[in-house]
């Protein structure tokens, strides 16, 4: 008996099942979620990533930042994302609808970056951190990104972008030289200081929060 057609039909249907359920249904269900328009501000949220930051996102992708940094905040009561200050609220699907490439990530060797712009607003901090993470975060296992900087001879006026004055002693260039971020470095920092989801959408307002034990009260085990 030739059962090959029957086996093949089964093989086809099993994958068709999950393809329909996971891919198709969700694409139809929320694949074309729209931004929310705020009439008071005259702005649609989520905001479009500004140009320089959009280019920085490409640098983020090509350096593989995603393999240590997630970009998704879990709900209060599930993990400590909120307590760590990684966001004011959980991430929702609408936060990502403007993104051509969604970089949720699955690893937290480093902290979540979805709202990094709300925590580290100062570009200088980011430049020092990229130059060598040990400067700002001793003990970190993030690699240095010195290749996003250029050490060059000062010609005429020193560059306003130069960072060596903020660097510790051991990183100082030879006199007459300055350390400036490359264009890629500037873009990457522009991306990071643009990353935050603070707008409260209707779906983020009514989230169940697990009650915390009251402070100071003895907890019975």
């Amino acid at each position, binding site marked *: 008996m030739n059962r*090959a057609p029957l086996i093949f039909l089964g093989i086809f249907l099993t994958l068709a099942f999950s393809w329909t359920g996971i891919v198709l249904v969700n694409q139809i269900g929320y694949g074309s979620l729209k931004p929310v328009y705020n009439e008071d501000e005259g702005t649609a949220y989520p905001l479009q990533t500004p140009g320089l930051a959009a280019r920085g996102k490409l640098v983020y992708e090509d350096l593989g930042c995603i393999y240590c940094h997630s970009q998704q905040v879990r709900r209060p009561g599930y993990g400590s994302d909120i307590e760590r200050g990684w966001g004011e609220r959980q991430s929702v699907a609408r936060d990502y609808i403007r993104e051509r490439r969604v970089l949720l990530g699955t690893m937290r060797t480093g902290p979540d970056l979805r709202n990094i712009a709300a925590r580290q607003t100062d570009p200088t901090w980011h430049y020092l951190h990229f130059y060598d993470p040990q400067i700002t975060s001793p003990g970190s296992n993030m690699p240095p990104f010195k290749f996003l900087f250029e050490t060059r001879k000062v010609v005429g006026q020193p560059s306003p972008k130069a960072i060596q004055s903020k660097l510790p002693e051991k990183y100082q260039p030879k006199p007459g030289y300055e350390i400036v971020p490359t264009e890629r470095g500037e873009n990457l920092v522009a991306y990071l200081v643009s990353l935050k989801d603070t707008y409260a959408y209707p779906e983020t307002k009514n989230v169940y929060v697990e009650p915390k034990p009251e402070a100071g009260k003895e907890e019975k085990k």
Partner: protein
Amino acid sequence: MASVPTLVSSLNPATTSDDVKRAELSEIDASTKWPALFLLASAVGWLLIGTLFALISSFKMHSPDFLGNYEWLTFGRVRTAHLNAVTYGWSVNASFAVAFWLMARLSRSVLRHAGLLIVAAVFWNIGVTVGIFGILAGDSTSIEWLEMPVYATPLLFLAYALVGAWAVITFRFGKSPHIYVSQWYILAALFWFPWLYSVAEIMIIFAPAGGTVQALVNWWFAHNVLGLWFTPIGLAAIYYFLPKVLGKPIHSYYLSVIGFWSLAIFYNWAGVHHLIGGPVPVWVQSAGIAASFMMIIPVIVTAINHHMTMVGSFGALKYSPTLRFIVFGAVSYTLTSLQGSSMAIRSWAEVTHFTHYTVAHAHWGMYAFFTMVMFGSIYYIMPRLLLKEWPSAKLISVHFWATAVGITLYVADLSIGGVIQGLLLNTPVLAHKFGLQQGTDPVPFLDTVKATIPYLKWRSYAGILITIGHVAFAVNFVWMVARSVQTTKTEPTLFRSPPEMEVTAQ
């Protein structure tokens, strides 16, 4: 162990051995020689390259300054190059070779259009080379398991289509009226992969879907590459070689059918467990968790089937390299799959998600299961392609012990480190749940990093051990290909001589 193995007896439960079939089989093996050799040689090459990338990335995780000034070798790129080299380079090349070698044998059909396969294999390897070069150069897509840049992927797809077309042709020309379960797995895998791959490439890279639907597609694809491509090929090899080497039929045909269909139904929904707690609909997460849990059925069924086949023959593990690798892989499959099911539980995922625990799990599956099975298969296939034996039993022994101890150390070490990392990351919420802590201050993030460093160092030591195993394997492989037939002995290369020669069929 009274059964006398022959080349044919366990090939197909319905066949009886005779010399005609034996001759036919060696004709089939001979017809697969060149494409199989090309694929296996490429696989071994990629294994070494991938291992090198692995070591570099592992060192970087605890010594970030190591090669820190080279943009091409920054962690995010070299780690990705490692994944792609061992997945698409080593694993896919090896699985192509094993799959079509098994297919030709089980269909009892000489390999037609060997040229087609060689062309496909060349395309595939060019594609992988271009892709990995692209990743190192900075063209990675940053989509996990789909990092290869757009200029490499069509080449891979084309190569894949050729292999698939070839397999269907061989299957149709087959003379065997019976379809053995290994063939089910191989046919299914060959059909599933291009579907997964093309949908994922289109919906994420070429015409991106909206928002986090991309993430769903991503994990539907990435988990299914493991579940619907590598797992079926690995299981097909176990189902073939286990009875083959032991010279007795598989325990239960019925169980193998249940195992196949339950895997087919449940595995392909399981991938969503990578997004538990993420910004995707909760119902689809729940479906993924349920499916991950249901995977216990195929895993247990397959484990029983393999175990019952082994019962009474464990002594053969002392002699046959193929059997030893295959059994190590089969046991790992059971354990890592059960671990995978447990990781889908929400409260356990809360701890282990985003940590090194997941990395340990991935290596348990892709290495301790799949790669070990491929090693075992290669030890069986190569002598039949080249008509000469493995030059050194010692090197095989080094290979086995270095990789077996190495990966066990790797998985144990990183699992513990991962749980510690997860518990620290999730304080104070978890501390409250367990009543351990009153305060609300989280452990400083850098402390979670520092706590993992010793485990990351031990991972590097385990990696060095695994590397030693790979070098031993590669040396033996090259030596075998290079040496001339005249000087070789005719007995199979075993770990030691069995008391009665006929109990082994290496």
